[in-house]
C-alpha cells in the first residue's frame, strides 16, 4: 500500500493538537504530520516526496510569522512534484484578498473557517483524499474505509 500523508500547518500548538485529534479517524490509512511553520512544512513535504511517498493533502493556516499559508499554497501549486496534492485553507483571519489569491493563483481546493465543525472537516478530507487517490491512479481498494463513496462510484462508472 502506498503511504499517504496529510500535512497540517499552524503556528499555534493548541490548534495543531485539536486538529490532529480530529483527524484520528484517518490514522489507520494516512500518516498525519504536524508542522508549526511554513518552512518546516516544506521540509517535511520534500522529505515525504524523496521517500517516494505521497503528500495527499495540505491543511494550512493563513496568518503565521514569516510566511503565510497562501505563500505556501502558491509555492506548492507551482511545484510539479505536488501537482496532485489537495489543499485546504483553514483559517479565521484570511482577508478577502488572501482568499482570492489562494483560489486564483494557488488553485485552492477548499476553504474552511475556524472554528471548524468536525463532521464538515471529515467530509471534506474524505472527498479530497478520494480525488487524490483517483487522480494518482492508486489502488483505491486499500483506502476503501476513508473514501467518499459518491466520488468513488462516479469515477468507477468509467471502468471498462
Amino acid at each position, binding site marked *: 500500500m502506498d503511504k499517504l500523508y496529510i500535512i497540517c500547518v499552524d503556528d499555534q500548538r493548541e490548534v495543531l493538537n485539536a486538529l490532529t485529534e480530529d483527524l484520528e479517524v484517518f490514522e489507520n490509512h494516512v500518516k498525519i504530520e504536524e508542522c508549526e511553520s511554513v518552512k518546516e512544512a516544506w521540509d517535511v513535504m520534500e522529505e515525504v516526496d524523496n521517500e517516494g511517498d505521497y503528500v495527499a493533502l495540505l491543511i494550512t493556516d493563513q496568518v503565521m510569522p514569516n510566511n503565510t499559508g497562501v505563500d505556501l499554497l502558491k509555492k506548492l501549486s507551482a511545484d510539479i512534484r505536488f501537482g496532485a496534492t489537495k489543499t485546504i485553507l483553514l483559517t479565521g483571519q484570511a482577508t478577502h484578498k488572501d482568499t482570492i489569491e489562494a483560489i486564483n493563483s494557488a488553485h485552492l481546493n477548499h476553504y474552511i473557517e475556524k472554528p471548524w465543525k468536525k463532521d464538515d472537516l471529515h467530509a471534506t478530507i474524505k472527498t479530497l483524499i478520494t480525488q487524490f487517490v483517483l487522480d494518482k491512479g492508486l489502488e483505491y*481498494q486499500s483506502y*476503501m*474505509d476513508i*473514501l467518499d*463513496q*459518491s466520488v*468513488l*462510484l*462516479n*469515477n*468507477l*462508472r*468509467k*471502468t*471498462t
Partner: protein
Amino acid sequence: MTSQRIKLLISILLPVTVLLLPISAFQIEGLTIVEQRVIAIFLMAALFWILEPIPIYATSLLIIFLELIMVSTKGLKFIITPDSPEEFGTLISYKDIMHTFASPIIILFLGGFFLAMAATKYRLDQNLAKVLLKPFGENPKWVMLGLMIITALFSMFMSNTATTAMMLSILVPVLAVFLPGDKGKVAFTLAVPFAANVGGIGTPIGTPPNAVALKYLTGPDYISFGSWMAMALPYVIVLLLFAWGLLLLFYPISTPKIKLTITGSWLKNRKAYIVYATFGLTILLWLTDFIHGMNSYTVAMVPVAVFSAFGIINKNDLKNISWDVLWLVSGGIALGLALEASGLAERLVNTIPFGTFSPLIIIVSVTVIAMLMANFMSHTATSNLILPLVAALGTSIMSLGPLGGNKMIVLATTISCSMSMALPISTPPNALAFATGTLETKQMAKPGVIIAIVGLILNYALMYVLDIIGFF
C-alpha cells in the same frame, strides 16, 4: 519481514524447487523437461494469483514472459537447446504465445469495452436505466426487482464493476430516506452487486471468466454469441428471481414508498445517434451470425472501428480501457496454450486415472472447487487456473461424453466462477456495496452462500436440460 514479502518468497521458492527437481521425482511416465517447466510456471501462476504478492495482471505478463524465455522456440539459447531431444520435449512457437495479446477473444472484449465506454460517455446507460425503471412504480418490492433486472441487463454488456458503481450511485441517496432500522436497506444494497454478478453470466462478454471459457470452446465445441445467450439467459432470469425473493425474505422492506430519481435526458446530437445505432447494430449482428456469417469476434470490430472513426472514443478515452483486464485474460490463454501445446495437459489426464471416477463426481468437484476458489480470489484468475485443467478432463474423459462432454463441463465451471459472491472480497461489486456502510459481512454472506448453492444446483439442472435437448 512483511507478510507481502513472505508471500512473494513462497510464490518464487516453490516453483523454483519444482524446476530444480530431477525429472524422475515427478513419477510421471515420459515427462519431458519442457513439461516440467510448464508445471513450474503453472504452480507459480497459481501461487501468485492466490496469494497476490503482485497485482494479478502482472502475474499474467510474468507467465507470458517466462513461457517465451523458457519454453518457446525463440527462448534463451542456453536453456532451450536440448542434449537429447526426446527427453526435452517440444518447444512452443513464440508467435503463438505472443498472439495471446491479440487473440480473437481479446478483440471480442475490446469491442465490449468500446460499447460500454461509448454508452457511459453518451449517457446511454443512465437514460436507458431511467426509462426501464419507470414501469416498476414506487412499491419498494417492485422497484428492487426493476433495479436488479436493469443491473443484470447492463452487466451483460458492461463490466460488473461499472454497472454496480452506476446503480449504487443512483441507489445511495435513496438509502437515506429509508425508515430508521429498516432492513430493506440491506436488501437494496445487496441487490445491486448480486444482480451484477449473476447478469455477467448472460453473454460471452458479460464477465472475463466467460472470455477465458471461449478459449476452450473451439472446433466442434464452438459457441456463438446467440447460443450462449440462449443457454445462459433463462438461467440468469431464474437465479435473479430467486435472489430477489431471498433478499426480500431475509431483509423485508418496511418503508412504504421508494423513488429512485435518475437525472438527465437523452442526448440528441449526431454522435449520440451514432452511439445508439452502433450499439443496437452490434448486438443485432452478434445475435444473427447464422445469417451473415461473421462470428462474434469479427463483429466486435464494428464498435471499435465506428467509434474511433467518428471520434466518439478518442485518444484520451483509449487510456481508460482496462488493459489490465485484457492482459489478465491473455495470461490465462497463454497458460492454457502452454499446457496444451507442451502435451502436459494430456499427460496429466492420462497419468491420473480420472476415467475410473464417476463423471458426476468430476463435474460436482470441479464446479464446487471453482466456486470456492473464486470466493477468495479474482474470478478471472480462478478461471485462468481451473479451466485449462477442466478442458483437459473434458476432452479426454470418455464417460463425460453422454453428459455433454467438454462443452458442458467448461460451461458449468465458468458459470460456477460467477457464483462466488459471499464475501466483500469475492468481487469488486461486493466490495463497493460493502463500502456503502449499510451492511455487515454476515448479512452479505448468508444470502450469498444460499444463492451460490442454489446457483450450483440450477447449474446442474441447466446442463441436464441442455444435454437432453441436444445443445452440446
